[in-house]
């Protein structure tokens, strides 16, 4: 449960994990190192210009393709506060929830550079410039529990009693 305010990086439909982090950089799992190459082929200015707290807005099927957890790790390493998209590819969705990158399923009509305020407690996204509000549904209860536990590792530790 959190509130985020950040500047938008706008992407289209079907942003695949090869775009988010090309395969040639998959020789580390370190989020900060991965972030240096995020979107290297499609938005080469991203690593140098992204700021902590920025928000990625995508269309449908965000995170499609490879299972590489390096994709959400790269976004977290870049300081992205949350990803808003019309729909998410399933492995990217799992990975993000499991490692603590907030995902919000919502169709939002904004441009690059807009500022959004995301309130996950109340399920509201506010476009700070236009004043337009968007509503979204919370995560299923089990996934919220997992996310609130601090991610899958902590959830499993708690469940196994270690």
């Amino acid at each position, binding site marked *: 449960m959190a509130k985020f305010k950040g500047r938008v990086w706008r992407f289209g439909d*079907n942003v*695949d994990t*090869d*775009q988010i982090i*090309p*395969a*040639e950089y*998959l*020789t*580390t*799992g370190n989020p900060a190192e991965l972030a240096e190459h995020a979107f290297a*082929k*499609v938005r080469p200015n991203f690593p140098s210009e992204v700021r902590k707290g920025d928000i990625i807005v995508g269309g*449908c*099927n965000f995170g*499609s*393709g*490879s*299972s*590489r*957890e*390096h994709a959400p790790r790269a976004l977290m390493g870049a300081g992205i506060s949350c990803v808003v998209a019309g*729909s998410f*590819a*399933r*492995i990217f969705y*799992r*990975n993000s929830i*499991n*490692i603590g990158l907030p995902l919000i399923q919502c169709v939002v009509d904004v441009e690059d550079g807009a500022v959004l305020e995301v309130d996950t407690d109340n399920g509201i996204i506010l476009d700070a410039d236009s004043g337009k509000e968007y509503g979204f549904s919370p995560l*299923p209860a*089990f*996934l919220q529990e*997992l996310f609130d536990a601090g*991610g*899958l*590792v902590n959830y*499993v*530790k708690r*469940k*196994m009693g*270690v």
Partner: protein
Amino acid sequence: MSRTISEKILNGDAGEIVEREVDYVMVNDVTGVPAFEALEEIGTPPILEKIVVIEDHYVPNKDIASAMQAKRLRDYVRKYNIKHYYPVEKGGVCHQLMIEEGFAAPGRLIIGADSHTCSYGALGAFATGVGSTEAGAAMASGEIWFRVPGTQKITVEGTLPKFVMGKDIILTLIGDIGVDGSLYAAHEFYGSAIRALNLSDRITISNMAIEAGGKAGIIPPDDKVFSYLDNRVIGSYKPVYADEGAQYADTFEYDAGSLVPMVAKPFLPSNTSPASELGGTAVDQAYLGSCTNGRIEDLRVAAQILKGRRVHRDTRMIVVPATRDVYMRALDEGLIKAFIEAGAYISGQTCGACLGGYMGVLAEGERCVSSTNRNFIGRMGHKDSEVYLASPATVAASAVTGHITDPNDLD
């Protein structure tokens, strides 16, 4: 209540979130190290009999960074004495190896930290790709959460025309439903054309479920699967079939006789056209390999087409047998010699250039016709290179002419 194969294996109803014990958890040299890090963070001993570690992506080490990564993986393998461990010289592309080594079997629940884990659906398993952290968590706890998928029923009836392969069936389907047409859903395949396919072509179909956004691509197991598993499968297994009256989210029906060799153009697997309509598309490279189409059956089809012909002077052809076993059989059958004589280059078993790793990376402006599974921006190399996905038959025919070619149109 009547259930689909996925609902029965996961023992839940579509939409429900369940936690289930898995039979196996597989990791490779890219996803393995972060998985072992998650395991160590949890701090309990790994459940050794469930863990399979396969090197395939960047081995033999392609550069210093990948060498360091592979070394770290091998250090974990030694530390925990992982018994199901396959270095590249003993193994090859992970999904083909999981099948060859008898891990994949009907009714099993298998996860792998690689998106094409869905390949094992061709043997009637529920198998799906996951991330590294959850693979590591499953190494510790033996279980993982699933959202039980709804199922799309795809039926292909009739007889496939000459040179139309499993690849053409799945590319046709993805072209029709889109790269998110099966988001969060499973496939079940039926019909006389599916039953007539060899296991290799069925694996190609299941392999690419993920390219429609799918969670699993399941083909009800039959005698072809059972006889393949004789003297191969580890342990016992129990086939699972859908109940009469199971509920399907969608149904799709195809007439096999109307299907043609199909190609997916850049930059989505859904961007399909018949190969016969792309004759003007010259190719710098023709790539035959991968978990999608690097099996002995694929190599046989390509070698047959290349017999008495040569790879075009402006095109380089790269052949990558998926596993050591495929390579050995290709040697025994004379296929390797045939490829070399036709002017192709042969690589050892590896994922290689499929994901732009090495062994065939594309330069700016280059175009590749490839038997692999993804044609995303920069997938096989430079951001301004292009990948056209096709069957082994179409790849071989295109290698001969130097441009995309329906194998039926060869002289």
